[in-house]
């Protein structure tokens, strides 16, 4: 009886029904491979099973982290001297996708009534690569923080140096390091949050220069690219190699904090580093 009521739909009918299902309704976590209804990621965009923080735009991160955020240097962008057509195309696309003009969003944020200079790298802007304007925005952020005696919070997410800008990109590592050190010498607090992925020249400079270095769960954190390492050792690197948990085990990260607890943790660290009025 049941059979008569439940008829197998025709091929065309099936296709029609399938087309009605929106794309990306289900999501698979790249870390624990759980498949889940994408709504369950929530505003924070985390895996409901293992807590992995999916890559998010800098604008979204500003929104979920800070109570208020006043953007700085919004118009600082890739210099015109880089006129390669393919590169210009990438920049145009990146601007559209991220709503910012370089791979880092900088500004003054507030968190539980505490003021902080904040930099947020955007993994969707040419892989969050370190262009000369990226370095410029970060340096200006540190300079402002040093002048105004503010702590800095930096969310890193980057594939490393920006190949299209060549040696100028490499120079940003030195330029930013200088600004970080000047801020540090002024006795000010610098907190880093390593997000997925933090690699290359960013890892080898300001990502590893924080007074306190936190990481999001399971974030990829490393220096050399996986393929380059495979070619060197002629085999597959071990499982969980270059994951935040492994880097923590080796002593290069202070703590791993799931994204859902980050706001509270950052707020707590800012409070712990507030300079008493009596100490100037």
């Amino acid at each position, binding site marked *: 009886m049941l059979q008569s009521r439940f008829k197998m739909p025709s091929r065309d009918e099936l296709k029609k029904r399938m087309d009605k299902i929106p794309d990306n309704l289900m999501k698979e976590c790249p870390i624990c491979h759980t498949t889940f209804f994408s709504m369950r990621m929530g505003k924070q965009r985390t895996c409901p099973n293992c807590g992995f923080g999916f890559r998010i735009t800098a604008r979204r991160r500003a929104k979920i982290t800070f109570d208020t955020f006043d953007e700085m240097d919004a118009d600082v962008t890739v210099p015109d001297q880089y006129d390669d057509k393919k590169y210009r195309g990438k920049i145009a696309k990146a601007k559209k996708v991220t709503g910012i003009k370089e791979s880092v969003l900088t500004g003054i944020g507030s968190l539980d009534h505490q003021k902080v200079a904040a930099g947020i790298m955007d993994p969707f802007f040419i892989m969050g690569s370190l262009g*000369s304007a990226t*370095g410029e925005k970060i*340096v200006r952020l540190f300079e402002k923080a040093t002048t105004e005696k503010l702590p800095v919070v930096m969310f890193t997410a980057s594939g490393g*140096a920006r*190949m299209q*800008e*060549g*040696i*100028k*990109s*490499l*120079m*940003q*590592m*030195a*330029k930013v*390091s*200088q600004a*970080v*050190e*000047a801020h*540090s*010498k002024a006795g000010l607090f610098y907190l880093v949050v390593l997000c997925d992925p933090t690699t*290359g*020249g960013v*890892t*080898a*400079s*300001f*990502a*590893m*220069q924080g007074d306190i270095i936190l990481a999001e769960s399971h974030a990829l954190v*490393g*220096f*050399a*690219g996986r393929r*380059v*390492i495979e070619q*060197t*050792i002629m085999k597959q*690197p*071990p499982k969980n*190699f*270059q994951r935040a948990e*492994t880097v923590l085990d*080796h*002593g*290069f990260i202070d703590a791993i904090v799931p994204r859902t607890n980050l706001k509270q943790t950052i707020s707590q660290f800012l409070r712990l580093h507030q300079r008493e009025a009596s100490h100037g």
Partner: protein
Amino acid sequence: MAKKTAYQRVQAARDSHKISTDELIRGLTTDFFELHGDRSDGDDQAVIGGIGLLKDVPITVVGIRKGADTEENIKRHFGSPEPEGYRKALRLMQQAEKFHRPILALVNTPGAWPDVDAEYHGIGSAIAKCLQVGMQLKVPYISIIVGEGGSGGAIALACGDKVFMFEDSIYSVLSPEGYASIMWKDSSKVQQAAEALNLTPEWLQENGIIDQIIHEYHSGENLGPLRDFLANQFNELANLPIDELLRQREQRYRNF
């Protein structure tokens, strides 16, 4: 002699007959004493460090070096330092600051050593520390790219008050092979990559990345003129008040 193409320059920079970091140290300084170890984990053979006299002035020398033969090259990973190497250099540079010794950094590396242990031992962190501390060392600090200056592994020790390059040397964000493979997914386009990277000393000097080109010295050649040149450079820097020295170094990198 016709000007070399970018790729010929790459080959010249990698030539195994090129003057080595060790020879330069021996030729430039007297009474050089090599100092080993990073005081925490090991002693990387790819980095040499020590104290010597440059025309009677004590200086600290740190250098990234390739090997003279296969055996040495394997030990030194063909001039690719491990984190321990950068930590050794950093230790010696901080010691130089304590005793007001100028620092000479010699760089010949295709890049930091890309393997699993280097990652476990914090290669990124080690380079980051060299940059952070290097920017504020209160002593004159001169870097010379001798052969290859590859990527983050090179800039770690190339962030001095002055950066010079040998005529047959290259300095780039990535090796031409790596660049070709990332940009065009074709590592055989090395020649085009070498052109695109603008890695020649001439281009880099024109664009203010380096300060001056040093003419090529060959193995066994008298290094007297280079010694005089460096002594003069150190002198000029040493005559600056520390605040001014640091301000100028800051400005040098702030402009990039």
